[in-house]
């Protein structure tokens, strides 16, 4: 009985770095930790460390609005995110950790004819790949979400929506902790408060990394630092088509549950869900200038609150509980950038912008395969850095411009 109160560490806190590792993962977010886990689980590579300059989950992985979905616009994106959602569906079982994944469904509202056409197109692409996704009309929206204002005498009347049943929300901290615990149990080392300050390269190949806690030899480095990706790529002189900005979010005080579907309006640049605690969780768009400063702004709060009230006037008396920001790595085509670079052994995983949390499992699986086999998996072939030199973007603007 006493045993249940015993303090248990979820992962070890190794006191010193080894002199060398088979692979070094930089960044202890969902992507870095998932990569370490699948390296061990799928490929038996356990001589791996994850280096995190702060605490794990301190980046965007612990700050996002936790929306999981696969209703992307391009064939490349749709099949990739579909696989990720399928992995998430099994993940609580696999990692033996309650991730509280609630597939409550996801509605992208259309407020114009143009938006209806885009939604119809997305539904077609999705269905081709076996993704549940269809166009619905205001009556159906009202059925799914009786509290929403579907009247026509508002600024942006709802003409319809893209309905994506498997979409939902998850507990983001739990995903980070579950991957960390599983990777640690299989032998990978997680080093927090360990900042990478330099990366050694000789004859075009990675030779090691320097940190505030000493140097390590290794021939493979995976850069999973999202918003900070450029600062690490600079260390090996690899150029990236990334600009860094912040995305903000806020929650209201908890109220009685009345919303059990995710609502997105690209017209109004706002999206929201109600968490298991009853808080309304609301997000918008990245700030339109580049910044590495995690500082929230009042105009964000005002404009998103105003837009939410257009959809849910009954929230007008609700208090704002807290507001925060996270740093995002924006890519030119709203698709990720994954794979090898011109420096041998330096792998990138960036361009996750405002939508990368949903991809953590498939990123981990494919990056681990790339590290272990040195062959690029088919699923991530379209996302190579090289596509920008060849002027071949994979445009997800229509499906990812509203950030989630």
């Amino acid at each position, binding site marked *: 009985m006493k045993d249940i109160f015993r303090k248990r560490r979820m992962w070890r806190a190794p006191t010193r770095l080894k002199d060398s590792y088979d692979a070094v993962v930089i960044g202890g977010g969902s992507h870095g930790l998932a990569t370490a886990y699948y390296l061990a689980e799928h490929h038996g590579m356990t001589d791996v460390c994850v280096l995190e300059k702060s605490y794990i989950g301190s980046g965007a992985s612990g700050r996002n609005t936790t929306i999981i979905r696969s209703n992307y616009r391009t064939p490349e994106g749709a099949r990739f995110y579909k696989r990720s959602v399928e992995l998430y569906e099994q993940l609580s079982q696999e990692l033996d950790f309650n991730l509280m994944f609630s597939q409550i469904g996801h509605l992208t509202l259309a407020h114009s004819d143009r938006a209806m056409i885009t939604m119809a197109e997305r539904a077609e692409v999705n269905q081709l790949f076996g993704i549940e996704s269809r166009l619905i009309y205001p009556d159906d929206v009202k059925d799914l979400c009786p509290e929403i204002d579907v009247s026509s005498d508002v600024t942006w009347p709802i003409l319809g929506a893209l309905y994506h049943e498997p979409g939902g929300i998850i507990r983001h901290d739990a995903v980070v902790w579950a991957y960390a615990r599983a990777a640690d149990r299989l032998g990978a080392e997680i080093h927090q408060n360990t900042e990478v300050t330099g990366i050694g390269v000789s004859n075009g190949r990675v030779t090691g990394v320097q940190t505030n806690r000493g140097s390590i030899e290794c021939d493979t480095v995976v850069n999973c630092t999202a918003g*900070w990706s*450029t*600062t690490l790529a600079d260390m090996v002189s690899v*150029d*990236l*088509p*990334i*600009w*860094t900005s912040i995305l903000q979010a806020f929650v209201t005080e908890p109220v009685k549950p009345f919303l059990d579907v995710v609502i997105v309006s690209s017209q109004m640049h706002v999206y929201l869900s109600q968490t298991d605690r009853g808080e309304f969780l609301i997000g918008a768009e990245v700030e*339109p*200038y*580049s*910044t*590495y*400063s995690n*500082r929230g*702004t*009042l*105009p964000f709060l005002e404009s998103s609150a105003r837009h939410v009230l257009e959809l849910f006037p009954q929230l007008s008396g609700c208090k704002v509980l807290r507001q925060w920001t996270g740093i995002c790595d924006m890519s*030119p085509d709203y698709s990720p950038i994954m794979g090898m670079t011109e420096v041998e052994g330096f792998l990138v995983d960036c361009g996750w912008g405002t939508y990368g949390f949903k991809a953590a499992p498939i990123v981990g699986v494919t990056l681990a395969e790339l590290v272990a086999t040195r062959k690029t998996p088919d699923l991530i072939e379209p996302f190579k850095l090289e596509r*920008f*030199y*060849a*002027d071949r*973007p994979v445009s997800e603007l229509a499906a990812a411009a509203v950030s989630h």
Partner: protein
Amino acid sequence: MTFQVPCPNCGPRPVEEFTTTGEVRERPVESPSRRDLSHYIYFRRNARGVQTEWWYHRFGCELWFLADRDTHDNRVLETRLPTSSRGEW
């Protein structure tokens, strides 16, 4: 709070009045290869520190100008009009 940008015409104004097209990039020479042109179009220095950017006073005097801004804390150190001699247009 959000930060202010000193417009060369109007003085310090809230950032929401402006739009920016981001860091100033060096334009490729006369007939660039596809690689050089793509590099110019897509790639960014994305400095964590001071960078020179294009700003436009959209809801104001509609002036295009250059700003040296620190992306670490968003402080604008200097704004000025572009000069062709510095290759800025």
